């Protein structure tokens, strides 16, 4: 898998080189472009937030620099906390929901965590510069320059949202490519066809994104800009935006833990819709800074420690592995239990990691 999925700084697939036109299509069509090129199946799109394509994306607001940063990085995992994790369903909390999601105890799963890569960061950089000016123009006092902003209906905001949609589309496409190569790897290694293998997409959900959505506020429907930062969408049963197959149980919510503990699949709830604009947490959250984590890891062979517990970590530099040790993160189980008890997500299954690729 490590050979098949480019991970780490500077790595890329030699067979995926995009022309300017193709890049434009990726930014407009997202995962739909990947499927049109033979990466995955049309059915996959039913199981991706927004069907893998946010329609208001406009590449005119994505700079040449962003194109340049993104072009070599499509189909790459990236470094830091990005990963591909092979796991197994260790515990089922909600049989009905698990069945709807085709998950059962003992089943092997793969979780992919990556996004819009350098392209998204360049979109952010470019638009921060514009929004710094806009903040002055609209006389908004900023506590911190990183929080620069403009009113949502303004020209500046509309352009940023159009560029952000392109970055989200790039991310949908990126994950679709990687998911395809995961499939391919399993098929090659296990000498099994896709049907016998049964690796199917459960769900692909965004985090760190702002979206225009309709929510009920004080008894009436209002159009809002919902910014999910460190958060992910958690729409309830019967929402039209949830795939039909999951409509009775709610939208799948993927909450990765750290590489040594576990990860969770939840479903969205009506309470989340009422209390958090259909959102819940996206991960465990860090406890230690990367520097502190490295100190804790000093003198230990983390890879060996994890291997002794049946978790194989590959690809990452020693530095990344030290930064990403379990102790650096809050215990995801505690975080998920809070989410579950608060009612803004309902536990479905717990996944135990077996193998992790990190960038």
């Amino acid at each position, binding site marked *: 898998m490590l050979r098949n999925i480019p991970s780490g700084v500077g790595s890329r697939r030699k067979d995926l080189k995009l022309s300017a036109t193709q890049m434009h299509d990726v930014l407009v069509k997202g995962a739909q472009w990947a499927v049109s090129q033979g990466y995955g199946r049309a059915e996959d799109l039913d199981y991706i937030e927004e069907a893998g394509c946010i329609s208001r994306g406009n590449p005119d607001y994505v700079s040449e620099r962003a194109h340049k940063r993104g072009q070599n990085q499509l189909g790459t995992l*990236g470094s830091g906390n990005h990963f591909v994790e092979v796991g197994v369903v260790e515990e089922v909390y909600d049989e009905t929901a698990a069945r709807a999601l085709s998950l059962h105890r003992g089943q092997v799963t793969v979780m992919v965590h990556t996004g819009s890569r*350098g392209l998204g*960061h360049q979109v952010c*950089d470019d638009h921060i510069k514009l929004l710094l000016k806009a903040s002055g123009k609209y006389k908004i006092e900023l506590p911190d320059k*990183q929080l620069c902003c403009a009113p949502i209906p303004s020209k500046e905001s509309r352009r940023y949202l159009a560029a952000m949609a392109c970055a989200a589309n790039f991310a949908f496409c990126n994950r679709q490519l990687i998911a395809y190569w995961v499939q391919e790897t399993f098929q090659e290694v296990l000498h099994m066809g896709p049907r016998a293998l049964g690796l199917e997409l459960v769900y692909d959900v965004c985090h760190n994104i702002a979206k225009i959505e309709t929510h009920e506020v004080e008894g009436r429907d209002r159009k809002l800009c919902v910014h999910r930062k460190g958060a992910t969408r958690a729409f309830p049963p019967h929402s039209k935006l949830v795939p039909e197959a999951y409509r009775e149980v709610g939208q799948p919510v993927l909450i990765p833990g750290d590489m040594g503990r576990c990860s969770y699949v939840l479903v969205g709830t009506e309470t989340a819709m009422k209390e958090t604009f259909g959102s819940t947490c996206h991960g465990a959250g860090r406890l230690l800074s990367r*520097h502190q984590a490295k100190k804790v890891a000093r003198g230990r062979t983390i890879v060996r420690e994890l291997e002794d517990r049946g978790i194989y970590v590959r690809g990452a530099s020693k530095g990344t592995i030290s930064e990403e040790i379990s102790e650096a993160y809050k215990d995801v189980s505690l975080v998920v239990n809070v989410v579950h008890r608060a009612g803004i997500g309902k536990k479905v299954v717990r996944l135990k990691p077996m193998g992790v690729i990190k960038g």
Partner: protein
Amino acid sequence: MRHKKYEYIDHTGDLGFKAYGTTREALFSHAAEAFFQAIISLETIQQKEERLIEVGAAALDELMVGWLSELLFLFDTEHLLLRRFEITNMKDCGLKARVRGEVMDPTRHEIKTGIKAVTYHQLYVKQRGGIWEAQVILDI
């Protein structure tokens, strides 16, 4: 006593540093060293390639972000690792620099940390007691 060039500061989730210099030129040069030292050990970088850089911004602190973002752009697009930074022209709203380094060679270079972006979070550039000081938080 010679003042230190830079120091890293603890920041949950991200990585920050403070850089110092007796002149603005030295400050920007030291900040660039701190930036690349976070990615890789500077001593492993040979000075084989040279680039001329020009950056503009509305204010000095924004110029710092613009400067480091330019270096990140070179690294992201050309895999260029840099270790020598000579600021040849410095104004409040712009700088010119000659930078040297080499293209990353995975067989020799071990990346410590991948940097995603240079942020404006808790950013400052100021002069205190004759010493220029800057603080930058990197998104990693």
